[in-house]
């Protein structure tokens, strides 16, 4: 005699991204902290020294925040016009910033008043930076020049005019104090050597360059501009390695994570994308507004993103500690010993064994199904906890009832309350491709059963209204998708037949008949 076979719950994989280690790593951030600045945040720079404070350049101010503070520790407000490109020196003690009026100011991190002012640029200076020896400052300006300043004497050491458009990107070399890279709106990226006083390498990016970035090894250079992110191999004389086109608006900023040197790019399309070492997108952060600047703290503790609406969004990394405090609050279950008690007892030779039949433990709905109590089983499956956290269990019970041919019986004879439960569940899950097929049957049966009495309850009627709306929308969507599919088909038909075959592998399953059934149900709803 076979025992009762419990309902099989199918765990269908969710469509979409696959879970990899990278996604897990980048998912492990808390929800962002939003800090409101006075204007668009154009530059964020982390101090290389231990507390890793960060300077945020926005409007006419530069604020310095601590890693976990939401109020600025320090602020530099002595700008007459918009400040740009505030960045720390290698020891974190000095800060340099350009401004709209063409002045470059140098601040002590503890002081308020500028230590030095470098005058000479005739137009706005958008990018400034210390060279790696710490005694010189390099700046790029809208007056097409790129100047190097001596910090102690505050004099201009040299001025190079090689770009033919605004200079909006700058990256000094950390290994060689005489090298720096600039990017300009004239679509070029240039590497300058102060020893020769001119550019030593020029790369055509093809779009106005918004940001340049050097890998720590300084063999690879990243430039962003337009929708493209390009990686250049400097050791091969500036050969283009990869060109990435993952954003659909201008890529404004790029930075490297300190763990594993993963590339992050932010764009006006409000996304931050994280690439793995083979330059495939592994993760995606969504933001509320177009991104202008971005920085990652050493050890990837914090990801700070500045946006056009003046909001600075700071994400902190989750730590195990936090989790532990959460779990310790929860009541501990019985210990392992309780479960194995008596299970590992080995009988001695002369013991008389009385075998006890192993009891089959069934879930509540299975017990009810076993005794053919179909309505009760459906009720159990529709209980709050199951239907919200484990919808697949609810659907499995529905499928099982349908297989037994008793789904109609189970759905019949319900009052307003339990009917709304079912309709709520339908509203929530009817478009999940994993569940839509059985749920559409449920919808059909509900309509058939309660057609006469639906108008007596305003609650149910409202829900049906909503159901009709969403179904109609879904049907339209499916129709559009089918149209797209048709267009694509014609496109692929003109390509080689092999390509077509490869593409069809990914074609959504049973889209066609799904659409038909969706529209039939929505038609049913309409009739009512």
């Amino acid at each position, binding site marked *: 005699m076979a025992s009762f076979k419990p*309902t099989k719950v199918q765990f269908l994989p969710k469509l979409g991204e696959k879970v990899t280690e990278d996604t897990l790593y980048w998912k492990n951030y808390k929800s962002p902290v939003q800090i409101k600045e006075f204007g668009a945040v154009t530059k964020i720079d982390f101090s290389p020294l231990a507390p890793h404070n960060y300077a945020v350049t926005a409007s006419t101010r530069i604020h310095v925040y601590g890693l976990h503070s939401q109020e600025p520790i320090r602020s530099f407000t002595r700008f007459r016009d918009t400040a740009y490109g505030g960045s720390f020196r290698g020891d974190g003690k000095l800060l340099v910033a350009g401004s709209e009026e063409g002045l470059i100011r140098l601040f002590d991190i503890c002081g308020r008043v500028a230590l030095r002012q470098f005058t000479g640029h005739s137009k706005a200076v958008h990018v400034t930076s210390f060279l790696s020896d710490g005694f010189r400052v390099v700046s790029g300006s809208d007056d097409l020049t790129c100047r190097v300043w001596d910090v102690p004497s505050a004099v201009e050491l040299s001025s190079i005019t090689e770009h033919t458009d605004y200079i909006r990107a700058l990256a000094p070399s950390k290994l060689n104090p005489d090298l720096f890279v600039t990017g300009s709106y004239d679509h070029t990226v240039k590497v300058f050597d102060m020893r020769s006083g001119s550019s030593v390498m020029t790369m055509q990016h093809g779009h106005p360059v918004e940001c340049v970035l050097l890998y720590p090894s300084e063999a690879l250079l990243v430039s962003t501009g337009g929708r493209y992110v390009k990686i250049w191999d400097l050791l091969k004389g500036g050969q283009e390695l990869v060109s990435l086109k993952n954003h659909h608006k201008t890529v404004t900023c790029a930075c490297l994570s300190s763990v594993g040197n993963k590339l992050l790019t932010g764009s006006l399309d409000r996304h931050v994308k994280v690439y793995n070492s083979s330059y495939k997108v592994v993760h995606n952060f969504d933001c509320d507004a177009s991104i202008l600047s971005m920085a990652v703290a050493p050890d990837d503790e914090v990801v700070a993103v500045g946006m056009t609406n003046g909001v600075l969004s700071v994400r902190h990394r989750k730590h195990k500690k936090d989790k532990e405090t959460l779990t310790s609050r929860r009541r501990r279950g019985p210990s392992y010993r309780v479960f194995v008690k008596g299970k590992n007892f080995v009988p001695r030779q002369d013991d008389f064994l009385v075998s006890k039949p192993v009891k089959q433990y069934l879930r509540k709905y299975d017990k009810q199904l076993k005794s053919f109590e179909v309505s009760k089983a459906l009720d159990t499956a529709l209980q709050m906890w199951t239907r919200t956290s484990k919808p697949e269990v609810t659907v499995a019970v529905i499928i099982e009832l349908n*297989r*037994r*041919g008793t789904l109609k019986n189970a759905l019949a004879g319900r009052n307003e309350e339990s009917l709304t439960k079912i309709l709520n569940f339908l509203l929530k899950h009817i478009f999940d491709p994993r569940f839509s097929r059985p749920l559409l049957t449920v919808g059909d049966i509900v309509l058939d059963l309660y057609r006469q009495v639906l108008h007596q309850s305003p609650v149910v009627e409202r829900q049906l209204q909503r159901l009709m709306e969403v179904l109609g929308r879904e049907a339209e969507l499916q129709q559009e998708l089918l149209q797209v599919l048709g267009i694509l088909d014609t496109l692929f038909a003109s390509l080689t037949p092999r390509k077509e075959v490869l593409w069809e592998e990914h074609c959504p399953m049973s889209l066609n008949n799904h659409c038909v059934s969706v529209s039939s149900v929505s038609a049913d709803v309409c009739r009512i």
Partner: protein
Amino acid sequence: MVETSDIRVVRCGGSKVNLTPPIISSDSRFVLCTSGDLVKVYSTRTEEWLHSLQGHTNQVTGITLNPANHLQVYSCSVDGTVKLWDFIDGILIKTFVIGCPLFAIYVSEKHTGVLFLHVSMATDSKNECFQLVSVHLPKSAEQEVEAKEMSAVSSHISKNPSCTAFGRGGEYIAFARHLQLNVYFFRKQKTYSFSLKATDKKGAKNAFTCIACHPTDDCIATGHEDGKIRLWRNFIHKKEYTYSTQHWHHNAVNTLCFTPEGTHLLSGGIESVLVQWQYGADNRKEFLPRLGGSILHISASSDGQLFCTSHSDNKITVIESSFKVCGVIQGLVKGDAVLTDLMIDPRSKALVLNGKPGHLQFYSLLRDKHLYNLDIVQQEYIYEAGLDQFEVVKAAFDIKGSWLATVEERGKKSSDLEFFLKLWAFDERTQSFVLNTTITAAHTDRIISMCFSSSEETTMLVTAAEDSQFKAWCQGADADTQQDQNFWSCDFVGSYHKLNPTNCSFSADSSLLAVSFQEVITIWSPDTWEMLTTLCQPPGVIRDLCFGRLSCSKYLLGTTTKNLLCCWNLLTCELEWSTSVDVSKLQPDPFSENVAAFSYQSKHTDLFVFKPSEPRPLFTNKNVCSEKVHRAVFVPREEPLNSCDESTQWLNRSQLYFLTQNMDLLTFSTATEEDRMLSSSKQLVIDDSVAVTPFYLLLGKHRQQQQKLNTQSHPVSDKPQQTQGSVTIKELLHTPAHVLPAASVLCSMFVNSFLISNTGVQQDPLREEMDSEKEEEDSEEEMEACDSQQELRAQGSVDEVTPKLSKAQERELKRVRKTDFSWMAGLIDSKP
């Protein structure tokens, strides 16, 4: 072609054991059931098939114990005879020739020498008029007697044999037909009839389905089509009858049975739940659910200790009176149709086909035994008529037998078709298949054909479906996650001009894949998934497709719906030959070049066996059977035959089994094979190891041996010692390992058996007492031994036994005497 007489079609694979109610012998040791034209005897305890009563020439339709002698059994058959058997020894005692087809047999203790039989009325078979007749058995000593003394009891008989039953002590007989219950009283010679209305307001269906009479009370229980059970009382007075109704079954009650004391009523139906109603207290009932297929018959042993239920899935369950299943006798499960192909499990060499609903059965053809069921669907089976259930429709093994692919399907009629493709891995530890991957939407429409690649290294599955695509599935790494996964994923999707594929097949070295799309065959290379070529031979849709094997591997064979058998040469991509023959099944032999083709023409099926390279068929058999053949399989032989005759050569390495539309499993057997079978059956020792299990025998003997050790001082004759030893060895070799006692017990016995004391005088009197029923058989063997050795040694013990022997035993002895016992002499000579 010359019709060779030494190959003939043989029916094989157990036929139905559930046609008639099984009967339990009065000592509860045996279960008898009809199986085709045999009556099979099983042991209730070990569930082993002991022997069969062979003699009828057509389907046996009823068996019943002889009320006068509980060791005898009557059987009736469609061939028009009633035979009386001694079922323990399997001897035919008498044959009564009735002369018309018989469909059921009833006996009663009160009517000695009278049999009650269902006969078909001679008019015509379409009306299905049945008659209940009583036959007086003539008393004569002859083996075959013609029974002429017939008298009709009634002609209002349902064709269902369970609608007739004898009442209390045989005073009356109750039979029902449609809506009428008739009771015939033998004393009054009168029939009372009671009728019910066909339906009522509540939608009852009152047609009778079965009947049972209480053994000691005047009460008749009837089962009805809507699941009601009615208990009729007081029907002796025609007008004042009463009945009470119980309703538990939700569908027709198939069978009813009172326990011998009449304390309980057992009922069963399609739900496969055995219900035990307490007689008198009608609401108290016990259930035994999930027994298997729907219950067709229930019978109880005469002491009420055992019940037997026979099920629609060709199974007999033995149930103790405490409502515990204690044994299952399983035949080859035959559903309504075999949807899967016939397959051979490469590991166990078992035949694999649809079994119980949602299961695959593994059936050993060699031992004619059901091995096990593999649950494919893994869902609770709901026993309800007309419910659309999941069925296994396709299955395939890979060449090593380490993977099994199955397709289960639901919703044949309705538009929403559900199906799953499942892949099962063979688990070495548990020696069974374990579910590895379930693919929910493998295709958007029904899968038509499925095959594994035949190479040893990489396994690949190809499925072709009605959504005009075929897909290749591979096990292994998923490129995206870069992990070595064990599950299967889609590797390639192919299509050809949006035509529906009809078949797919791999070549023998799996370097080529042939997929037929309607009238076109496309050849693909599975390595690069390039379409190499297309072969086209209109008219007609391709029905079957197979590659040649071994030396003929350059040929591709195909059959079309327009009665064409084509053979392409793959090297030249040209049609080699084609012939007009309506092939219903094309089956290549995996171990030779041969291909078998079954062709159906004008109500009979012909078989052709040919090599693709030769235009002349190797073997032709006209009129293999009268039905269409859709499934066939070549089963590799354990040891190849070495026949040189051209017509039988194709059966040397493998055997062809095929399944007709009537679900008969047939095969071809050659003369040499039959000879071998015959010789092997001669060597079989007929041992009555039913009640006395081998375990008991060994232990019993062990005790005897100990006794002997104790009385070592007594001189012991050498002769019984010797036979003792040889019997022990034989038993050691013949009993399965798991029923043997521990080796430590056996070892001393084994060594003792080689000890021979030289002084042969007399047997120990104590020992003679100890010997149980086994003695009889032992003494037989003793005799054999002494016969073969020396005639001069006259043995007292043997002389004592011989006069007791029955005629049958004597015959047996004669047969045994003829067999060769020279090996025994050799055994003795080797000893000092």
